[in-house]
């Protein structure tokens, strides 16, 4: 049965789009049929991060308003045939997202895909509430930093009260994805530790993505980090997160980019 997953955070710049692309690609790599939807109407970027920016013709708003068919707007990934992207409109604003329209698009997508990943915009306004509205599962992306943790706490409150599932008396499945984590700084007491964030937010952890140069390297070339360098620390961390998302029990580790002496001396390779 298809699952609608929202990637959300409240705060901007914590890694929602990076994580949506990476999780989507990792799920598709495992054989599932996946679509990633950009809900950031007016400020779309998922197309760029996934390397499909020159292939956008129709978008989510065109489909919501009935100006284009779903199949005309879906962009199939060039690397993985079972991975698709539904881009946001760059010229409209978030008021163009109607609840009925979004529900209709999601229902149609449920027939075609195993996973529907909704990349939420930052904030708690219409774009963000529409992205989470029909979700079955939520991945809350959080940096180990005070403003991000506070905003995540607020988003968790909204997930528990403003989603369709919550309003029907159900409980949305929530997972914490801790990104940009630096275990060395956390050990030195300069950064909130995994346990600190878990204690404060009290939702289960789905993965820890270490701070890594590989993330920027991947977005530079328009490829999800799980495809661009699956063996890298963030690549492995996202693949582990996907296995947990699918119900597997995977030991929690923080992958590191191991550099040999040569790598340390001549560490600046081009992407």
């Amino acid at each position: 049965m298809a699952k609608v997953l929202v990637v959300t955070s409240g705060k901007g710049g914590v890694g929602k789009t990076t994580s949506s692309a990476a999780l989507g690609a990792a799920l598709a790599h495992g054989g599932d049929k996946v679509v990633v939807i950009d809900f950031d109407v007016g400020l779309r970027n998922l197309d760029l991060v996934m390397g499909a920016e020159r292939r956008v013709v129709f978008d989510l708003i065109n489909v919501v308003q009935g100006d284009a068919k779903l199949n005309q707007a879906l962009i199939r990934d060039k690397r993985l045939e079972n991975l698709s992207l539904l881009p946001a409109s760059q010229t409209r604003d978030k008021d163009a997202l109607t609840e009925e329209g979004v529900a209709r698009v999601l229902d149609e997508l449920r027939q075609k895909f195993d996973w529907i990943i909704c990349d939420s915009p930052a904030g708690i306004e219409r774009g963000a509430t529409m992205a989470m509205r029909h979700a079955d599962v939520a991945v809350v992306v959080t940096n180990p930093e005070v403003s991000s943790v506070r905003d995540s706490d607020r988003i968790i409150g909204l997930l528990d009260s403003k989603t369709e599932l919550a309003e029907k008396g159900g409980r949305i499945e929530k997972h914490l994805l801790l990104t940009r984590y630096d275990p060395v700084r956390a050990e030195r007491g300069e950064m909130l530790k995994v346990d600190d964030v878990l204690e404060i937010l009290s939702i289960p952890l789905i993965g820890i993505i270490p701070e890594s140069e590989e993330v920027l390297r991947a977005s530079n070339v328009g490829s999800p980090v799980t495809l661009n360098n699956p063996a890298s620390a963030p690549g492995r961390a996202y693949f582990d997160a996907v296995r947990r998302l699918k119900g597997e029990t995977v030991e929690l580790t923080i992958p590191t980019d191991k550099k040999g002496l040569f790598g340390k001396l001549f560490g600046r390779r081009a992407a």
Partner: protein
Amino acid sequence: MNLLSFFNRRTSAPVARERLQILLAHERGIVGGKPDLVAQLREEILAVVRRHVMVEQDNVQVKMNRDSDISTLEIEIEIPAPVAARA
């Protein structure tokens, strides 16, 4: 930075953690539409203590830590020194 200050430096992460815990205990009450438990406790504790000793509002600190297994409530009341020579 000398070696001594390196070892004596107070780490900042515990400060972040404590600030967040206090702030979120407060905000969860407001956002959830429930009365702010910590603020309410502070008022009531203050009222009880004031029946016996005069304390200032700012001298009552109420902190709540929530965990999955156990929650703790920490109450700190600063009582002014008794007036020296009661004539």
